[in-house]
């Protein structure tokens, strides 16, 4: 009997051994195409390595596919040829396109449900997730790197101009007054500059003042939504920008992301600068000869409901259809790992992107991270200032890359004096809506 027992045990062990070897060989591979360059790309791969070491069922394989548009086009080309990855990172303006592709994407809320993963949508910061949910509040993609614009200012110039260096401007009235003081005192040549005219001075500006960007909850409610950014508050702001540009208070930083804006701030030409909260590390590194202060975006104090909350930009992870079931289980498992407080806090603190869960923010607080790194929580405070309204959840329109282009063009027409603010914004609305309508036709 004992003899047989030993024999059986040996057999069972061999079997188990064979089985475990089999599992090791058949690790399910999850492909992830991303657009993270530089050190962020390195950090991303580090996180993936951590995940791969943490379990032995799945192996996530990250592949860098170029800039955001390049990554998205590569994924679409691959999908059309049946070679798509499981996960692809898509920038926020691609959201409309991805969302409309019903048969091509696997909504994250559904994926997590199907896989029975441990996942609580309520733990996420609503200002981050709200941008990527459908009208019923279901999460369609997994936020990965999000940021929001904040105000940076040059403390040394403030001091030289006789201003309180610990006091950033609160309202646009302050911005104007401070800029004048700075220029009159000769402390700097210009008051302020800004990156992203479209994102900062129109989209976020609208949300921050609780003004609608478009109908249907800024497009989140449906594809028949249209732009409405030519309201009196936006027109007044653009009028002011034009006026300030003429008197030199404001210098234009160029189209799209405003590539000429950072040098204006770093070289101390302009004393204040509005741009992404994720630029903080760059700002600190490049501001060699002066101290940097941080503040929330300015607002007009005569607008009711301002300041509301700012909205985000950045990229999220979309899951594509057409892969084997096992893959999706792995994706769900990996997403649960990615949204765990430790990983979130690590990524957020390294990269400067916003944390996506409350738990990650709280972890950072208990670690004392925000005290050690002043300014790193301005963005979080700004997006959580108030519970988002229909005007400040986010926005979602088709063909939005081109719409942003239109915004840049009309802003240039305003600055060069060819159009008034009202004409420029009216034109943004009419030309933008034509593009949005075209998208609606192609996708319905």
């Amino acid at each position: 009997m004992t003899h047989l027992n030993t024999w059986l045990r040996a057999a069972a062990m061999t079997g188990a051994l064979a089985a475990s070897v089999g599992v090791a060989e058949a690790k399910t591979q999850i492909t992830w195409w991303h657009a993270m360059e530089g050190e962020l790309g390195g950090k991303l791969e580090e996180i993936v390595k951590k995940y791969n070491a943490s379990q032995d069922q799945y192996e996530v394989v990250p592949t860098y596919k170029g800039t955001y548009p390049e990554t998205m086009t590569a994924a679409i080309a691959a999908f059309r040829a049946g070679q798509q990855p499981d996960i692809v990172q898509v920038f926020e303006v691609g959201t409309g396109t991805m969302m409309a592709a019903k048969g091509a994407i696997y909504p994250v809320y559904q994926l997590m449900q199907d896989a029975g993963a441990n996942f609580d949508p309520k733990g996420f910061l609503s200002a981050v997730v709200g941008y990527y949910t459908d009208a019923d509040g279901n999460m369609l993609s997994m936020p990965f790197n999000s940021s929001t614009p904040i105000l940076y200012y040059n403390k040394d110039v403030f001091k030289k101009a006789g201003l309180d260096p610990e006091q950033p401007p609160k309202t646009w009235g302050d911005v104007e007054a401070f800029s004048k003081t700075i220029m009159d005192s000769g402390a700097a040549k210009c008051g302020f500059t800004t990156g992203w005219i479209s994102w900062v001075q129109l989209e976020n500006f609208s949300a921050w003042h609780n003004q609608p960007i478009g109908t249907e909850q800024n497009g989140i409610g449906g594809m028949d939504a249209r732009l409405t950014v030519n309201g009196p508050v936006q027109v007044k702001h653009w009028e002011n920008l034009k006026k300030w540009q003429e008197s030199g208070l404001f210098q234009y930083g160029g189209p799209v992301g405003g590539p000429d804006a950072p040098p204006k701030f770093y070289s101390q030409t302009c004393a204040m600068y509005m741009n992404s909260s994720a630029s903080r590390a760059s700002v600190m590194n490049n501001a060699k000869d002066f101290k940097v202060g941080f503040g929330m975006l300015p607002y007009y104090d005569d607008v009711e409901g301002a300041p509301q909350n700012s909205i985000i930009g950045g990229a999220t992870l979309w899951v594509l259809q057409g892969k084997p079931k096992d893959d999706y289980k792995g994706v769900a498992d990996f997403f649960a790992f990615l949204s765990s407080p430790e990983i979130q806090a690590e990524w957020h603190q390294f990269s400067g992107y916003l944390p996506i869960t409350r738990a990650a923010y709280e972890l950072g607080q208990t670690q004392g991270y925000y005290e050690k790194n002043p300014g790193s929580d301005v963005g979080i405070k700004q997006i959580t200032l108030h519970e988002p309204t229909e005007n400040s959840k986010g926005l979602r329109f088709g063909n939005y890359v081109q719409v942003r282009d239109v915004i840049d063009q009309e802003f240039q027409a305003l600055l060069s004096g060819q159009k008034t603010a009202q004409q420029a914004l009216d034109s943004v609305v009419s030309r933008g809506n034509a593009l949005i309508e075209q998208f609606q036709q192609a996708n319905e």
Partner: protein
Amino acid sequence: MVENRPWLNALSHLVLITGVVVVAFPVYLAVIASTRGPNDFYSGLVPLLPGPHALENYSAMFGAGLSTSGAPPLGLMMTNSLIMALSIALGKIAISILSAFAIVYFRFRFRLVAFWIIFITLMLPVEVRILPTFKVVADLGMLNSYAGLSIPLIASATATFLFRQFFLTVPDELMEAARVDGAGPMKFFRDILLPLSRTNIAALFVILFIYGWNQYLWPLMITTDTGYYTVVMGIKRLVAVADAIPQWNYVMAAVVLAMLPPVVVVVAMQRLFVRGLVETEK
């Protein structure tokens, strides 16, 4: 030298020096940038004089280098770029010299059709027709392969066109003489046409090698395996995301390193730019 005219020679030197200063200035900027610290670029005029960080930047590139951003080691990327550049340069020269020979030295049915089919490919870069081209390559199972990297880029008519232009200038007497000697077309091609084309082949090789070496978007599209990374893809990874400012000192050090193989090719090929080939053959 036909004759000596000192003022003309002086003028030539002056033109060349001005030309070099203007044309090479951006390259000079890149070299300077590769010797500076990471934050020297945005706070004043762009640096015009070398800084003390050259050793640091270049050893960083050779050591951990591009791999800090998750890219494979520099050596592997250099090898891939080399394979790709050589395949494109040699492949393109081979197929185009043959087809130009056929078009110029033979008269056959559908010659005009063939001519136009080839010559409309002078246009439309890959970026503009990327979705259909990707599909073709995927259907042929050429994703993640050197063939997929190079063959689709060989489809262009510039080289064929250059050889055609050159062959048309080759005196007809050479061919008639060869025929009198009883040489067949391939013997004529090998013994006379090929040696005559040396200068043009050299110029083309330089251009095509660099073209292949600098490819970025196509390899990015059709590879998912980092084993096929090229050096320009590695450089692009250093040029950071929307929210951060790239470490230009590293980027430029990588740029300068990536420029070396093409420069070696240029210098080596210059030996073939010797006057008088045509005359000695005559």
